[in-house]
């Protein structure tokens, strides 16, 4: 079971809300799909500028592996207040710990309505249809 303290998108982003802020990352499944289980196959991650306002579902960055490029989408709208700049040069962090140290951005939430998001159980159901 994936962490139950957060919400998910079927495009494999997670969001963990605490107070007015939220941290956003991607799931272990996303990392595995991109890198085939090999951290060296991740090549690039592009994160937004601090201060950028993200609309609902907006693409805030890109992550790229040897095989493919994927958009990074925000589960909820808000203003980017911090980015995990360590990721851009150390993509292996994503393979090691996508749930905590591998966070991507922190936003100040413009909307806390999680009703359109998936909980961990619902996210895992979407994964079952992949395999």
């Amino acid at each position: 079971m994936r962490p139950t303290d957060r919400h998910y998108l079927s495009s494999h982003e997670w969001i963990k809300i605490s107070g007015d802020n939220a941290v956003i990352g991607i799931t272990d499944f996303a990392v595995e799909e991109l890198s085939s289980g090999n951290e060296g196959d991740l090549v690039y991650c592009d994160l937004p500028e601090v201060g950028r306002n993200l609309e609902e579902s907006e693409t805030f960055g890109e992550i790229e592996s040897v095989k493919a490029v994927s958009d990074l989408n925000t589960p909820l709208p808000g203003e980017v207040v911090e980015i995990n700049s360590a990721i851009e040069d150390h993509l292996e962090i994503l393979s090691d710990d996508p749930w905590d140290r591998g966070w991507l951005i922190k936003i100040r939430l413009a909307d806390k309505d999680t009703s359109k998001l998936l909980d961990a159980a619902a996210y895992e159901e979407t994964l079952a249809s992949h395999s």
Partner: protein
Amino acid sequence: MKQTPLHDVHVALGAKMVEFGGWHMPVSYASILAEARCVRERAGLFDLGHMGRISVTGADCLAYLDSICTNYIARIPSGSIRYTLICKEDGNPIDDLLVYRGDDEVYLVVNASNTAAVLEWMQARTGSFAVTLDHRTERETMIALQGPLALEILGAMTTDCDLAKLGYYKFTFGTVCGRENTRISRTGYTGENGFELYFENAEATDIWQALLEAGSGAGVQPIGLGARDTLRLEAGMPLFGHEIDAEHNPVEADLGFALSFAEEKGDWVGKQALLDVRAKPQRALIGFTTAGKRVPRQGYKIFQGEREVGEVASGAVSPTLHQNIGTAYLPLDLANEGNKLEMDIRGKRQGVTLHSLPFYSRTRK
């Protein structure tokens, strides 16, 4: 989706399986980059059962093939292999293929995604030629062992022929892992020394396992289609659907070595169109390296300042060159080694430096 006789072996090895040309194939077993390095440094085993194979026989076999192929088939010595294309009247290819010239048979190896189209095209052009086409893809299979250790490993498993004496782009028949009459060619799509083997479907698993076991001590691994694409691009070999397709002809792709305009070959489909292109080419295929982290991908546009000048045909992370590489079609006046241009990656620019093909040569390092 079709499956090769080794399908379940790949699944059991934990391969990531994808659809490719109508087949369910392994794209990688672990890391694509590690697999590419394995082939350059040691050797790797490939399931190529998806490749289309067609045997052509009959009294008019050579004349028939010379009427539809770009290369001069009748002039290939028996036991030799040549690269050729089959083109439409407009000179653009339907496919590129290898031609194995036997004593009384010519054996064709075509791309998986084009096999049906090639067969249909060939059948429609038999006319009054006395030829028989035998589609073997689903009865026989094909694997490859590629890399510096390939000769040593396969040689030890092969009796009744000396693979060390089998020249590049030559083939023979020998006993491999106890299977008699296995077609063995010194060919490949990696730029390494290596072999391709053809045998009955029922023998696939045994031969695959025997070769993997024989090479495991030396670090031989199974290699997926992802690394195969990286290796062929490093070696400057074209891939149908990228460097050549219905809109990219073999003259501009610099495949002149596979085109014969010799009078004795007679007329062939696409000849006049390709003579016209040769007299006045519009663009050229060239390689490039890029210093940035981002990977060139098919369809990215190439710019000179604000002017769009071309498009990426293929791209990859090159573990051999330690940088990202690609191929692109560019106007003739720009397609020069060392020229610096820019690639647009989803709205961002990354510099590219043109590099003549190939990026990697085993014999010319």
